[in-house]
């Protein structure tokens, strides 16, 4: 076998290996997921996706908070969520461009508290409440 022939055989083996190690088993699931979620609104597609799998209820809470957030809110303080990076990242992304903090000791002026579950922070009054969370503002 010539040097080029040997190289061709090795390259073909590499290509076959790469084809074999493709995550083929995912393909039917992905096709099902696309056909199931494609007609739905964007937030529902994200809700059913990988990025919210760590806590889908939290994403539903964030989306509900975003839709009810007063335009004038200067930032959002999240209470009741675990102090973990995925929660902070997802909250910051969903609520952008509003600044987000996880459970600050006190609510900065102009900010809204979004409470995941029950138990709003003290010295706030509830602005909106829904199944799974609420928005509240500092008592004037």
């Amino acid at each position: 076998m010539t040097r080029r022939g040997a190289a061709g055989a090795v390259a073909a083996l590499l290509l076959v290996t790469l084809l074999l190690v493709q995550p083929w088993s995912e393909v039917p699931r992905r096709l099902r997921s696309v056909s199931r979620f494609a007609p739905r609104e964007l937030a529902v597609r994200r809700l059913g996706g990988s990025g919210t799998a760590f806590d889908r209820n939290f994403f539903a809470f964030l989306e509900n908070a975003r839709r009810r957030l007063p335009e004038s809110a200067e930032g959002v303080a999240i209470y009741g969520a675990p102090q973990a990076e995925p929660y902070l990242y997802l909250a910051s992304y969903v609520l952008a461009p509003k600044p987000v903090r996880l459970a600050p000791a006190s609510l900065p002026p102009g900010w809204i508290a979004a409470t995941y579950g029950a138990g709003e922070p003290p010295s706030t009054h509830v602005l909106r409440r829904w199944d799974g969370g609420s928005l509240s503002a500092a008592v004037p």
Partner: protein
Amino acid sequence: MSGFLGELLRTGGVAAAAWIAGWAASPAVCPPERAFRFERAAWSWAIGAGMLAAIVPLSFVAGMVPGWVAFGIVAAAGALAARLAPVERVPRAGTAATDAAAADRWLWPLRAAVAAGIVLYALRALTEPMWSNDYVAIWGLKGKTVHAAGGLPRRLFEDPALGFSHPEYPLGLPFLYAGISFLTGRWDDHAMALLFPIFQVATLAALYGWLRRRRVARAPAALAIAILACFEPLYSAYMTGMAEVPLSLGLLLFGAALTDALDGEPGALRRLAAASALITATKNEGLFFAAAGSALALLLGGPRRWKAALSALPTALCVQALHLAWRGRLPLRDFALASFSMARLGEALGAALRLPGPAGWGVLVLIAVLLLLGRPAAEADRMLGLCACGLAAYLTLPAFAVRGPEWLVATALPRTAAGLAPLLAAAIAARYRASPAGSAAVDPADA
């Protein structure tokens, strides 16, 4: 399908407009030769994507809302520049198109493998809205903030609570996301994933075009792009939304332009300058690659080494200077010079060796065998040199990681090293080019 399909068509329309604008501007960097048509297609996307990103800061500076007017002005400027200062055609010595007919019978299976790689990646990328950690915390967060705020809030760089979003990273990709959203009129992080299969196709076109122009026969060139198209560590669902896929195209264009510049190919210095700007605007290591390319040109280049070396750096430094002017000097968040020690370097290398697993090591061994079976060639050595610089940096950096070498190796090395795949594919395949004096000489125009 109307929800997602409609948005996909809208994003596809913007991408098509960007590609057309890039095509109109591409004569400024690519000669009007048939041999360049694949690379011109790739450059058209790179330039078009650059325009989509550029309209965002330019509009903010001009006090405009980024939109079709700004895009039209930038596209017209690009087309005008191409018309006023096109790259001249240089007559090439005619060579016979004697690709071995026996090898051509493999072309159809190889084309099928390329198509499979593209379709599989498109499916992975478009299954759901972009979701990976770095997309949500860094690239997507900044793009969405810029789009929703209609500006570049200072807090992106100054708020310590946003440290996790890496304020020190370049803004090219966030601006690209924001630019597309300004043109489509909405933020849709699912439809926007379409950009990534487009980057993949552009990378494959650039690789195939460059290899054919460099006298690599059809079958090995097709084999190279088939292998790259199916390289899942780069074209994965996880990587969609992050900077590695766009950077990998930029690095390939940069490496090809560097090699062309050292060989005096027409328009190469312009391509080198443009690619240098693109990679620096995409990731921090873009500046490192621009500097490494410049040093390699001086080290490995011939009579044109100074021209090549000097063309590789200024645009990268300009992009860096613009970032400094806009956001100030920001430290690298994950690294500290004082953390380095030989023990930590050893720890990083040990962690890197444990990373691939049996299947990964099998693939790496096959790649090494392919590299060794090829013949040394100047253009391959330059690409390989650039690739080696990148790999050395990616292996050394964990020794400076504040959260420990093992952490950075595990979280970053697989994806950053995967971004070198197109460059490595070019370096290896170029070692199988037909000998200029041999019977297998091919006419690049016959690609």
